[in-house]
């Protein structure tokens, strides 16, 4: 609160807020709306029933008709508020519609049926979360399979990435051997060769290895990231060599030096690489799109894409699935945002 107070009382001009303060605040407010608004709207919409999603203009909150069980009727009946005619002001339950008239009953006195013009009534609605959008994902849309495929690729690829990249970084930062500079330059040079320009030949390699339609066809091509090697090498250079030599004096093997000394000391850089790798793999789209053609192998991203491409897009489950797909990344971001932004600002990679 004190920051707000100091902000409100601080002044650049002589008299209160000056123009730039107003503009700054206006800009930030608009930005919050523009950056968060769409995601928020998606999340709200994902709790609406399919019929509420068809509604135009849409309501802000997910609303559903209020239903009432009326004595003498097996199914629950929708409630309406009557806005005109002789029953104006009453809340009645609709039994059925016949042409322009609706047969309605008073839930308190179910014996007597009355006729109301359909233009003289508006549905009674209340805030209801259509959780069935989410449950049907598990029952009818194989969500767990796609989720598992995505998690498998993300976790395995990240473990291999961290292992391979840290081993290479260790070799490049802690040993003097002939060809070291050449190897380092070669690895850094691949930063300039994005996989997008090698799609066809990478596909050949993957298909020769029999990895088409296999999660490994997505995992292997991506694990040797030059970014990771570079990031870790720069960090490991700051670890003093004396520490390693002391361990070697005690007859530690090189593997032990790497695993027991260098890796734990590189934890901050490893954490940055883990975050990046999770982000890359979870969000990856083009390469899985090429390698994974069978729907049993689809990742969440591919499943979302194939559902939205259907002629009859069923928006309700699609929106729910989109929310579940962005949820893990959002949670990770909410918890780690300070480290993520710092990591990116320092290394300049994404």
């Amino acid at each position, binding site marked *: 609160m004190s920051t707000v107070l100091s902000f409100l009382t601080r002044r650049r001009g002589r008299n209160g807020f000056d123009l730039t303060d107003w503009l700054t605040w206006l800009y930030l407010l608009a930005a919050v709306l523009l950056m*968060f608004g769409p995601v928020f709207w998606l999340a709200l919409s994902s709790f609406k029933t399919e019929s509420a999603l068809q509604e135009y203009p849409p309501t802000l909150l997910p609303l559903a008709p209020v239903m009432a069980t009326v004595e003498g009727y097996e199914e629950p009946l929708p409630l309406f508020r009557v806005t005109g005619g002789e029953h104006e002001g009453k809340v009645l339950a609709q039994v059925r519609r016949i042409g322009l008239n609706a047969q309605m009953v008073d839930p308190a006195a179910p014996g007597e049926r009355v006729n109301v013009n359909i233009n003289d009534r508006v549905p009674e609605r209340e805030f209801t979360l259509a959780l069935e959008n989410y449950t049907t994902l598990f029952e009818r849309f194989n969500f767990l399979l796609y989720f598992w495929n995505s998690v498998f690729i993300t976790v395995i690829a990240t473990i291999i990435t961290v292992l391979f990249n840290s081993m290479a970084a260790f070799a490049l930062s802690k040993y003097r051997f002939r060809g070291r500079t050449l190897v380092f330059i070669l690895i850094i040079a691949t930063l300039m060769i994005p996989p997008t320009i090698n799609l066809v030949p990478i596909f050949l390699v993957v298909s020769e290895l029999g990895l088409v339609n296999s999660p490994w066809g997505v995992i292997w091509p991506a694990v040797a990231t030059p970014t990771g090697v570079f990031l870790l090498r720069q960090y490991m250079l700051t670890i003093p060599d004396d520490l390693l030599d002391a361990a070697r004096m005690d007859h530690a093997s090189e593997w032990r030096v790497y695993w027991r000394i260098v890796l734990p000391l590189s934890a901050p850089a490893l954490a940055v690489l883990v975050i990046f790798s999770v982000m890359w793999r979870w969000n990856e789209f083009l390469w899985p799109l090429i390698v994974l053609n069978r729907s049993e192998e689809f990742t969440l991203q591919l499943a979302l894409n194939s559902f939205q491409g259907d002629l009859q897009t069923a928006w309700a489950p699609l929106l729910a699935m989109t929310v579940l797909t962005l949820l893990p990344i959002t949670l990770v971001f909410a918890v780690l945002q300070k480290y993520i932004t710092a990591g990116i600002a320092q290394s300049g990679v994404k």
Partner: protein
Amino acid sequence: MFAPVTTAAAFVYRGAFELFERPMLALQKMTGAQRIAWVFLFPNLLIFSAFTFLPIILNFFYATTGSDRILLSERPYVGAENFASLLACENYLDPNSCGRDIFWRAVHNTGWFVVLQVGFMILFSLVTALVLNRDIPFRGFFRSVFFYPVLLSPVVVALIWKWILQRYGVLNATLEGWQLPVVNWLVEADWAFFWIVFVSIWAHMGFYTLILLAGLQAIPSDVYEAAEMDGASKWRVFSKITMPLLMPTMVVVIVLSLIRAVQAFDEIFVLTGGGPGSATLLVLQFIYETGFAFRPQLFGLAAAASLLMAGVLLVLTLMQLAATRKQAEG
């Protein structure tokens, strides 16, 4: 709640150590303490060779051979035919006069996309970074606001906006509420193009804002204090101090975003599929469709188009190298 997880992780960590300890020790005895570096390098280099170095060379073989076979031994040599077919054009400014008019439409679209997306994104990122660099409360929060979309997957980004922009979406409902004309945003060619630029700026500007902000914060404050003592106007401070000192960061950001924009694909593919017609078709989508989505799969043509794109990227990368070197010297 985390205790069992950390215990399990520690167990796996120790287990992995012991698993590799003996074989690595045996290797160390064979290689000696220095050359074991190659053993550490080996897995990474193997992957690099298979999926980066080898494909670079193979790409040239594909670009100079024809047919829809993936195995190189089954592909007849056609020389520069693929390139000739892509580049056959009476007038490069008019895609209709080209043999592969779709490719040239994609090139034109990508050109416009790169100019508009990078131009406006850098502008907005710079303004945002300047705003966030001011002494405002909740700065961390606002920084996250801009950064959050960067983490979202392209498919999610596209679906978020598709839901808003559809004919009976919330944007048209709002416009109608204000008595403004409604538009079928993703069906009208010019609007569809506007929205792919807009959405891709929305999704990526947070990243560049962050880098520019770091650049701004690296400018020493005593420079500003000195300017204030001399009574320099705000505009003068901005144009004579902030901009020149931010220029190195700016150049890196511009080149980086150019490289990304040339390869734009994901969000746009999901949002518009390149349509209506080929109004939002970009080069990478052309490559993807030529090589993988359409039948017959014209791998040679796709590889040739990739190499042309690689040429553009190479020029941009060399520009970046020159810029960073200049930055390091300056």
